[in-house]
């Protein structure tokens, strides 16, 4: 049974129809990537999964249970952690505090255990250890992104939703970040990765889907998608038929 399943999901914000019948699956243990140009609906897909948006039609099932009518607070308790676009770390709280708050969905946990888990996060992202007590807003873009992912992991999710982690980051930082993503995956977390940078995403994922204005146009294994003209066309135009 797939861990996550979207069946013919329609989603809109305001009067804009952003998703037009999207169906996809994520199996346990995979990294699946969702690609597409800006405005294709990738972020909308993640927001609909995590409950910030309610679909107007279609179903979303997590471990077989329908979640498309649930509030975000409940969905995260079920085991889906959404690291949204733009980092969104709490600027007035320290790095450590941001991380600790990541466990808010898990109920009461002993302070000692939380501290230990935080140390594990610093193990994955050693770059931010030295900023432990610095306020969020003082961090660079790359550091903030790492903090956001670490915070998302503190929920001990079964499924991690990552929204454009490479956005606005220098290539070297992106490399470090994706190395960490690989590590996280190896430790057993299933990941749905939304990315504009197709090549970077395909370097870690096993499968991918391509969105174009709310429709899924291409899907396949990494192998099938790499250097696929259809993928390039989704970003830069040049489709054969009108």
């Amino acid at each position, binding site marked *: 049974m797939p861990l996550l399943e979207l069946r013919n999901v329609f989603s809109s914000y305001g009067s804009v129809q952003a998703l037009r019948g999207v169906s996809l699956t994520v199996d346990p243990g995979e990294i699946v990537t969702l690609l597409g140009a800006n405005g294709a609906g990738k972020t909308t897909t993640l927001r609909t999964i*995590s409950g*910030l948006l309610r679909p107007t039609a279609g179903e979303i099932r997590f471990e077989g249970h329908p979640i498309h009518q649930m*509030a*975000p*607070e409940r969905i*995260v*308790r079920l085991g889906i*952690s*959404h690291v*949204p676009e733009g980092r*969104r770390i*709490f*600027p*007035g*709280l320290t790095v450590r*505090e941001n991380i*600790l*708050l*990541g466990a*808010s*969905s*898990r109920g009461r946990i002993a302070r000692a255990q939380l501290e230990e888990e935080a140390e594990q996060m610093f193990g994955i992202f050693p770059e931010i250890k030295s900023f432990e007590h610095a306020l969020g807003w003082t961090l660079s873009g790359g550091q903030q992104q790492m903090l956001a992912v670490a*915070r998302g992991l503190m*929920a001990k999710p079964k499924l991690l939703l990552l929204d454009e982690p490479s956005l606005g980051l220098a290539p070297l930082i992106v490399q470090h970040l994706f190395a960490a993503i690989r590590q996280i995956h190896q430790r057993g977390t299933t990941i749905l990765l939304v990315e504009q940078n197709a090549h970077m995403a395909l370097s870690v994922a096993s499968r991918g889907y391509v969105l174009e204005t709310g429709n899924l146009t291409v899907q396949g294994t990494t192998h099938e998608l790499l250097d696929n003209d259809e993928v390039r066309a989704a970003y830069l135009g040049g489709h054969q038929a009108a």
Partner: protein
Amino acid sequence: MEALANNLQVLFQGLALGSIYALVSLGFVLIIRATNVVNFAQGDFAMLGAYIMVACLTGAGAPYWLAFVLALLAMAAFGLLFNFGVYYPLRHRSFLPVLISTLGASIFMQNTVLAIFGAQPRAMEKVLNFDGLHVGGVFLDSQYLVILAVTMVMVAFQYFFFEHTLVGKKLQATSQDKDMARLLGIPVALMIAITFLYSATLGGLAGVLVGPILFVSIGMGSIIALKAFAATIIGGFGDVKGAIVGGLFIGVVESFAAYYISVPYKDAYAFLMLFLVLIFRPQGFFGEKVSEKA
């Protein structure tokens, strides 16, 4: 030497009154940070708290400490009521309907109290049974001493609560990024309710403390509220320590202005300062630059 003693006297009074403004302003800022709502009824929390206190003390003849606890509990409950009745139905609307609603709440509170208690201002007894201390030519009124002491305790509590407890951190997270807090599983609606509860209690506390000095009257909240707004802006709109510093600042300036310039216009100085700050430095002392349009 007498001039110094007089100035110290004025300063002392200014700090005490400024503490009241700071307490109200603090509650005001917390609501703004958590919900982006400017609550024009904030001062009326003080008025309501004072009246409840008076009712318990003189009406029911309760001992001071009991009346005090009851008044604060009542204000906490009222804060929750306010959250559900005024904020919650309008939480997705633009700022204008919400602002007007809080004005409506203010009218409602003032006139309900008027209907129950009548228009005659009430007196409230002081906390402590003695007049005050004489220290080197300066008379320290006992009520003012109590105000300063309680405010210092509250500020310390505030700092401890927000900086060193998990709930405090969750409250801060909610006010910094509500949607993100939801995504982490923080119960945002509960956090906001707590914020209103706490702010209303702070307001009520201010009213109970200042009651013996100012006479408890229907309009006392409005004037205090406007000075608290001024304090918030002068300190830096949305900044917690700015609210406290701003409150003290206004209290002191007002006190000196009344002493040296004129008493009848005492209330005008706060507004004048507000006017000037808004025109020349809207971000206040501590605040961020008022952002560019996007």
